[in-house]
């Protein structure tokens, strides 16, 4: 569904992504992990067309995305920090999103209800807390039932109830044949949600595998321990190239 070939991206002299090769399929759920500054957000921005890679091609649903915009109909994106026009209310933002996609007739408002956003539709975005903004971002990502969901740190600032509601929704999306990509530092959160893992470090894809295989290979019961185990093994086998 999403296919990245030889993607490289530099910010000035600093390489952020180096020759990334990835293929992500529908019905799977990918955990994109890595330390801060490893290129996760940049990778996502490249897929969304917000950042333009210096080299390589990206296909979404078989279509090259360069200078295209229609493919974004298929993507629901939840940014790490949702930023919205200050003067608009929650209701206006949601109506605006619906207005720019007049061809979509059925909208999925489950999350709007679960987060009780419909009850505060008249609140201005400026007055919202970080967590509430994140709820808006999450609700917008799922609003048009897109086949691809890209969620950047989805549960980082949410309260436990909202976090559970969102996780349920993600699990539902995965079950219903959608492609889900999640970045997170909270590995215990990812554990129940992902089928595959992609580990990014200093712009390289250092590791990618199915979670089940990773668990089996390392013999660990928990995802965080399995990843630590794998990283140690990998470090021993081939030290990181000098940056």
């Amino acid at each position, binding site marked *: 569904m999403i296919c990245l070939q030889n993607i490289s991206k530099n910010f000035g002299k600093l390489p952020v992504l180096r020759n990334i090769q990835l293929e992500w399929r529908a019905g799977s759920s990918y955990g994109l992990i890595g330390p801060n500054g490893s290129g996760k957000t940049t990778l996502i921005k490249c897929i*969304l067309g*917000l*950042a333009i890679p210096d080299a390589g091609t990206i296909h979404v649903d078989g279509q090259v995305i360069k200078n295209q915009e229609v493919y*974004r109909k298929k*993507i629901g994106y939840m940014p790490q920090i949702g930023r919205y*026009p200050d003067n*608009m209310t929650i209701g206006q933002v949601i109506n605006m999103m619906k*207005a720019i996609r007049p061809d979509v007739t059925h909208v999925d408002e489950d999350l709007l209800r679960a987060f009780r956003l419909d009850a505060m539709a008249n609140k201005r975005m400026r007055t919202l807390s970080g967590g509430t903004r994140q709820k808006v971002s999450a609700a917008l990502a799922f609003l048009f039932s897109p086949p691809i969901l890209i969620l950047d740190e989805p549960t980082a600032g949410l309260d436990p109830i909202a976090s559970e509601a969102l996780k349920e929704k993600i699990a539902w999306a995965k079950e219903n044949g959608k492609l889900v990509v999640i970045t997170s530092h909270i590995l215990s959160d990812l554990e129940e949600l992902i089928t595959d893992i992609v580990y990014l470090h200093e712009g390289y894809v250092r590791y990618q595998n199915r979670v089940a295989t990773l668990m089996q290979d390392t013999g660990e019961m928990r995802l965080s321990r399995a990843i630590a185990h794998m990283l140690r093994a990998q470090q021993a086998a081939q030290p990181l190239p000098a940056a």
Partner: protein
Amino acid sequence: MSRLLKYVFYDLLRDRFILAYTLFLWVLTSVLFQFDADAGKVILSLMNVVLLVVPLVSIVFSTIHYFNSYEFMELMLVQPIPRKVVFLSQYVGVASSLATAFGVGVGLPVMLFGGGAAGVALLLSGLLLTLVFVSLAFLAAVLTPDKARAIGLALLFWIYFALIYDGLLLWVVYTFSDYPLEKITLVLIAMNPVDLARIILLLQLDISALMGYTGAFYQQFFGSILGLVFSAGVLLIWIALPLFAAYRLFAVKDL
């Protein structure tokens, strides 16, 4: 595009600055007409506003607005909307708001009190200068990574075109005064939108006789229909060129 414009306008209408700017221009123009019965003198006073204040307000407001709309643009760009539409709707929104403010603030009173041909020239050059400086503002905004530097660059543009360029032009004319400079100064004037607007206005005000032989030459050139078409055409290029450059940069920019 029209759907997007609706939201850009909605945002701008909530901005009290545009309203204050309109009111300022309206009060100023009306008061000047109250003080002096001679429309020519009023237009001459207004000329300084048009040549200095209008470009300054246009370029600074547009630059700030671009960065204040950053979130909005980011939000739109992850939707199935082309970059061109996002960019142009911002430009059209800001440019038409500022142009309307000028049209209402200066245009209405000038028409009301009877400004004549000079009044029309004032309106035309004010509107064109507004659009030119909104274009330059967008260029400054896409050239720089943050708001502070963008405003700095925008002010630099303004200082250069409104103040420094004139000095340079004067220096060139003075230094090479032994040579026939008419054609060259014509080209040099075309390189600065503010000068172009000033010449259009001065010639409409019939004070070009004060400028001696050179003035007569410009009167002959700029006073004709051809001259008017030329200067309006060059001002249109001054709108299109920075806007096009800004769009090309925006199209490949990482947000």
